[in-house]
């Protein structure tokens, strides 16, 4: 249950009820005083409303229930700069920390989940590296919840490639049967081919990380 207490201002001719634009020309002290005189009565009314019934005693039982649905959410830094290798024409590399929170249902009832990666916009400008040409790969570090991808994955512009497989009965944070950390995390280590055929310049691409609970 949720209650919203709202004050509505339908009048413009009472002190403290001015529209913002009407009060801009007031001196600070005057504006403060008028603001207090407008809100203070309403705060008192609210306090009385909350305190109503305090004169008697009684008890009430309210049953509250909440249905927690399986869900997941993911967060990644907005940008990652890939760094040139130590010697000519060795791959560019960079690590991306992926944070996530997940709740899946117990095994037997069903839900598991996945985190995937997909190149949503290939490198631009054209002429340089291209994910479509398999220039971008990644490996996964260990995942604090679930099983991280194994081996080298080739990022794709057309398909989602695996990052983490999430098990049933997963929950994030708090310890016990849940993970000890909140959020959970996994590191992606990207590698971009540095071919001599690429013209000099700066190239950017977008990668989208998705979490899905099924």
């Amino acid at each position, binding site marked *: 249950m949720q209650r919203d207490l709202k004050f509505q201002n339908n009048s413009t001719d009472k002190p403290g009820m001015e529209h913002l634009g009407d009060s801009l020309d007031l001196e600070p002290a005057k504006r403060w005083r008028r603001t207090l005189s407008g809100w203070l009565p309403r705060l008192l009314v609210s306090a009385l409303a909350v305190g109503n019934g305090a004169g008697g005693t009684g008890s009430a039982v309210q049953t509250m229930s909440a249905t927690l649905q399986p869900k997941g959410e*993911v*967060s990644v830094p907005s940008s*990652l700069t890939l760094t040139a290798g130590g010697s000519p024409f060795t791959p560019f590399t960079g690590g991306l920390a992926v944070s996530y929170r997940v709740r899946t249902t117990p095994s037997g009832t069903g839900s598991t989940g996945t985190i995937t990666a997909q190149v949503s916009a290939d490198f631009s400008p054209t002429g340089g590296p291209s994910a479509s040409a398999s220039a971008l790969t990644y490996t996964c570090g260990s995942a604090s919840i679930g099983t991280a991808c194994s081996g080298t994955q080739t990022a794709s512009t057309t398909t989602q490639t695996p990052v983490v497989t999430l098990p049933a009965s997963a929950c994030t944070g708090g310890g016990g049967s849940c993970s000890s950390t909140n959020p959970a995390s996994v590191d992606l280590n990207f590698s971009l081919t540095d071919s001599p055929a690429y013209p000099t310049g700066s190239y950017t*691409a977008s990668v989208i990380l998705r979490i899905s609970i099924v």
Partner: protein
Amino acid sequence: MSRLRLLPSLLPGCLLLLVLASSAQAQFAASGTTTLSATIAPEAALQINTSTTTLSEAGTTFNLSFTGTTSFTFKIRTTKATGTGTINLKVTTDFSPSGGPSVLTPPTAGDALAYTCSLTGLGTACSGSQTASTTSSTPVGTFGANALSANAGNSGSVSWTLTDDPQYSTGTYTATVTFSISAT
């Protein structure tokens, strides 16, 4: 009191800062997007495929020279508009032991370690016959702006000619030549 007077005017700014600070952090959602960026700079590298080049003489008379070929593979990327590149070589260790050919102090004027160059598919090979030196680098090839090698690299070679002077004592003589490549 003066602080209280400032409060109404500062409050909107503080709220705005809070909103901006929270929006600057990465947000949790069903998906998240990150932008990968890489800056590709001019680079160059080469590999000598003939680790030891044997100079051999085709005949038994002194009017012939010793000849041999060193092959190499190079990769180069020069800057789009203004870049240049070079491949050079230098005799970093003169022939030894003494008593035979020498790049720095030949027994007879005109004795030389000379070479011609070849580049495949990219760049301009050195022109004519070049004389190798122990004191300065000499050209093998040059490259212009936006020179881009094949992914596997391009090939090149240097064909050597060493004078066969009758003053050289019999024996085996070795020298070391260092190739270098650069790009801007």
